[in-house]
C-alpha cells in the first residue's frame, strides 16, 4: 500500500459525520415529517383530487442533500381523466 492510499483511506470519518448530520436533521424534525415529505404528501393529495391515483402509476423519488433536496414525482395520468378535467 502506498502512502497516498493510506492518506486517502483515512478520510472516511468526515464523510460519516456529514452523512449523519444530514440524516439526523431530517429524522429529528418532530414527526419525522420534513418539508420534502410534507410536500410529497400534499402534492399527491392535490393530484388525487382530480385523478383517481393508481399506486402502480405513481413513482416518487427523493434525494436529500446537505444543501438541496430533490423530490421527483412521476405520475401517469390517463388520457380520459385529463379530458374530463378539461
Amino acid at each position: 500500500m502506498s502512502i497516498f492510499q493510506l492518506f486517502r483511506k483515512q478520510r472516511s470519518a468526515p464523510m460519516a459525520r456529514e452523512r449523519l448530520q444530514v440524516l439526523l436533521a431530517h429524522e429529528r424534525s418532530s414527526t419525522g415529517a420534513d418539508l420534502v415529505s410534507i410536500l410529497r404528501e400534499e402534492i399527491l393529495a392535490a393530484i388525487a383530487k382530480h385523478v383517481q391515483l393508481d399506486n402502480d402509476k405513481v413513482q416518487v423519488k427523493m434525494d436529500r442533500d446537505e444543501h438541496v433536496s430533490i423530490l421527483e414525482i412521476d405520475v401517469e395520468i390517463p388520457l380520459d381523466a385529463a379530458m374530463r378535467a378539461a
Partner: protein
Amino acid sequence: MGKVIVVTSGKGGVGKTTSSAALGAALAQRGEKVVVVDFDVGLRNLDLVMGAERRVVYDLVNVIQGEAKLTQALIRDKRLETLFLLPASQTRDKDALTPEGVELVMAELKRVFDWVICDSPAGIERGATLAMRHADMAVVVTNPEVSSVRDSDRIIGLLDSKTLKAERGERMEKHLLLTRYDPNRAERGDMLKVEDVLEILSIPLIGIIPESMDVLRASNIGAPVTLADARSAPAMAYFDAARRLAGEVLPITIPGEKRGLFGKIFGRRAA
C-alpha cells in the same frame, strides 16, 4: 423462483447488517438480482450501511399496510444495477409487521429476485421470527465469544421449529458465518477457536470474516465492504462466502493462519 436467506444471530451487534449488505452486494456483483430487506423495524440501519439513507421514501411497513406498492418502496443501488434495498420503517414498531403482510411481500420478492436477503433484528421476538419465517436458508452470524455462541445455538433451535420449512417437516439449511475474527487474539489463545465453535454449534461453516478497519470505513462512506474496497480481507472473505451460498465448494482459510515465520514472531512480540 428466488432463494430467501435470513441473516440472523440472536445476539445484537455481531455483524448481521454488515454481512447482509456485503453478501447481497457480492451476489449482485456476480450479476444476480438481489434485494436486501431490513426487518429491524424501529431501528433501521441497513439504509445507512448501504448508503441509501437519503433516498428512502416508503418502507416495508408502508407496503404491508397498503400505503405503497412494493415497486415504490424498493431502492435501487446507485453503483450496482441489480442490487435493491427494501428499508424498514424508522417510526413504527415491530407490531406493524403482520405475518400475512410479510408473507405477501416475500412471495412477490421471490418472484422478481434471484436472492432475497433478510437482515434480522437481534433477539428472539416477533421481528426475528418474522424475518426467518419464509427462509429457505439461514446464515447464522456468530462472533468467537461465549455469549454469541450461546445465542446462536438458541437461534438454531428457532430455525428448526418456528420457520415455515420446519413446520412443513423440511430441513432448514443453516450456515455459520464467523465474523469479527481476530487472528492475533486467536494466536494468543484468547479467543474461541474456529474448531470449537464449529463443534459446539455443529452447522457447516460458510466463511470467516476478520475483524477489520475496512468494515468501519465502508460503513462510514455508506457502501457494502465488497464495494467499498473489493480487495480488502473482509471483502474477499465475503466474496468467498457468497460463492459458497451459491453452491460452489471452496476451501476455507482461517485469517492469519497462512502467516510465515516472520509474522508469527512479530505477532508474539506485539502481543
